[in-house]
């Protein structure tokens, strides 16, 4: 056993843990579903804690500084399925595990898991699908993991029941089933033309494809883009999101903050690798970027109108998630290294904070007689603390200093200065930020200042206990840390985006993997790797 830790190949096998740990505990939890909720919580909670530990260890060990390729069953790519771990995948795994921890704590604090026997099994299945989607290097395997995470998310979203939840769930499910069908059409067309489904191999075969096949390849790739845009909730395919996120329970909505990012991650991974300027034919290099920028701008505008028009706080937060998707799409569309690094900073910020904001909205809803609607209500208990938390979250989400939203937007805008589309980008981001400030100020005003005299009203639900406060406050600590450590963090993200842009390295690592024979040192250094710094904090 000791050898597992000291041998140079240990990260390679540990790489499977983020995927296998949740699926094992999901199966175990299904077997335990008649046992007490306490036992289920212990199993599920220790799984989440272990997952967090493994993911942090993988990231800190610097395992992702080179592309770490795990061939399933030792079948070499492109014949078998490979999992690829790099800095980006490591970051996504960390975000998922962190959100899972926050969401789990809030679930326990509010007894949300008491309302049905399978909450924790579904929760773990959701983590299984998410982690698999972040690690896989194969397009069809990505489809399978998408289906896993979607099926779990349908169950989680509907958990607890209720007519409004069911209706939103039906819409969510139907649009995603159509998305799955489109995904299969795109995958089939790519396979029919290029004869492979491994992402790295696809990128390589694309360079050798005959010109008359370009039309089919472009159509298939744009179809894939549509699928990922449904997942990411980009204009005009976002209409399912506000109802879904606003109607589901708070811890589930908090976990779903990573779901839109799965779509963006898939765009970055698949389209970024396939249409990289180093390897792809010139006809493809600018196939996706302009679409991303313009659709991002439209998403941002529509989302901000939604933020202004929302009838309750949870729906407003859902529209804020949508606005962040728009901003991220714009930044991804620029495709420069600086923009990518800024994107990742904003990405971490918005995922963590919008999850926390959903939990806070739920706390406010629980304390008021009429939920989180705008109509005046008797004062909430612990009004000052809740109001201050709302103020901090609103500052961060709207992008005002001193918190992370401001830093992220500054980074994105400064990356956009030399873009050809800088005028619409600047105008949209700045004006929508102003509108978001106005909308959030109005909501704070309605929720905390327009107060009825204490009358006979009874709060909607019991407030959460101390654990709930920990869950709501921890995203703020993350945000504060991200501001204090902004310099080392952004230099780490710079190296990450350089790694993402080094597509030839990715292709080389996947298609010429080191052998996995036990005991043999597994990583011959790639000549280009040897020249570049590999440490995390140089």
């Amino acid at each position, binding site marked *: 056993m000791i050898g597992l830790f000291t041998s140079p190949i240990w990260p390679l096998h540990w790489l499977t843990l983020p995927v296998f740990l949740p699926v094992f505990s999901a199966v175990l939890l299904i077997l335990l579903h008649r046992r007490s909720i306490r036992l289920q919580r212990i199993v599920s909670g220790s799984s989440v804690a272990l997952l967090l530990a493994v993911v942090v260890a993988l990231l800190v060990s610097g395992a992702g500084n080179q592309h770490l390729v795990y061939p399933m069953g030792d079948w070499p790519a492109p014949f078998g399925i490979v999992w690829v771990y790099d800095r980006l995948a490591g970051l996504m795994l960390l975000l998922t595990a962190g959100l899972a921890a926050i969401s789990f704590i809030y679930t326990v604090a509010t007894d949300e898991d008491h309302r049905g026997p399978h909450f924790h099994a579904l929760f773990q299945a959701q983590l299984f699908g998410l982690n698999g989607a972040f690690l896989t290097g194969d397009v069809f395997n990505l489809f399978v993991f998408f289906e896993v995470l979607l099926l779990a998310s349908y169950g989680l979203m509907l958990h607890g029941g209720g007519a409004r939840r069911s*209706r939103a769930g039906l819409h969510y499910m139907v649009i995603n089933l159509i998305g799955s069908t489109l995904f299969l059409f795109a995958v*089939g067309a790519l*396979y029919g033309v290029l004869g492979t489904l491994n992402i790295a191999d696809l990128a390589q075969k694309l360079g050798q494809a005959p010109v008359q096949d370009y039309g089919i390849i472009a159509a298939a790739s744009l179809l894939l883009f549509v699928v990922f845009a449904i997942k990411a909730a980009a204009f005009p395919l976002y209409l399912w999101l506000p109802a879904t996120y606003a109607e589901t329970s708070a811890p589930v909505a908090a976990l779903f903050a990573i779901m839109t990012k799965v779509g963006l991650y898939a765009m970055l991974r698949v389209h970024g690798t396939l249409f990289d300027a180093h390897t792809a034919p010139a006809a493809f290099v600018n196939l996706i970027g302009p679409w991303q920028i313009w659709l991002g701008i439209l998403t941002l505008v529509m989302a901000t109108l939604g933020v202004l028009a929302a009838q309750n706080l949870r729906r407003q937060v859902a529209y804020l998630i949508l606005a962040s998707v728009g901003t991220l799409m714009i930044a991804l569309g620029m495709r420069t290294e600086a923009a990518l690094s800024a994107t990742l900073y904003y990405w971490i910020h918005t995922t963590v904070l919008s999850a926390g904001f959903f939990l806070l909205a739920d706390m406010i809803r629980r304390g008021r007689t009429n939920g989180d609607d705008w109509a005046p209500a008797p004062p909430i208990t612990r009004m000052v603390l809740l109001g201050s938390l709302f103020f901090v979250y609103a500052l961060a989400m709207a992008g005002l200093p001193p918190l992370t939203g401001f830093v992220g937007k500054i980074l994105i805008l400064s990356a956009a200065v030399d873009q050809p589309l800088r005028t619409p980008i600047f105008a949209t981001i700045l004006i929508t930020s102003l509108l978001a400030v106005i909308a959030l100020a109005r909501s704070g005003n309605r929720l905390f200042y327009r107060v009825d005299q204490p009358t006979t009203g009874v709060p909607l639900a019991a407030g959460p206990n101390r654990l709930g406060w920990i869950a709501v406050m921890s995203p703020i600590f993350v945000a504060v840390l991200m501001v204090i450590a902004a310099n080392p963090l952004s230099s780490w993200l710079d190296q990450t985006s350089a790694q993402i842009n080094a597509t030839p390295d990715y292709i080389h690592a996947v298609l010429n993997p080191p052998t996995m024979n036990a005991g043999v040192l597994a990583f011959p250094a790639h000549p280009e790797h040897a020249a570049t710094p590999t440490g995390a904090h140089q």
Partner: protein
Amino acid sequence: MSLLFALLIGMLTATGIFLTLRAQTFPVVLGLTLLSYAVNLFLFGMGRLASNAAAVLGAQTRYADPLPQALVLTAIVIAFAMTAFVIVLALKTRAELGNDHVDGTADDAPEDDSAR
């Protein structure tokens, strides 16, 4: 054979799209099913249609591509599970909302002027 195959996929897809755009949940479920049939045939066709080709690699120079068959198998299993789930969900919304309109509005609601 290719033409017939392509026409079949096109028919299934067109019918599926038409049905998913209907306002009641049952036609929508049927439409999703037809779409998944269409995509399964499409995946199968991407291995190139051939008759009298060997199923096993190396037994003959002409052989059927096994990968699309594996993909179709996976896709069938997933589509089957999803269809089962969406039927249960449709029944649940029918029970909870009292009608089978996809938006849960009653048939005589003013905004409901869409296809019956």
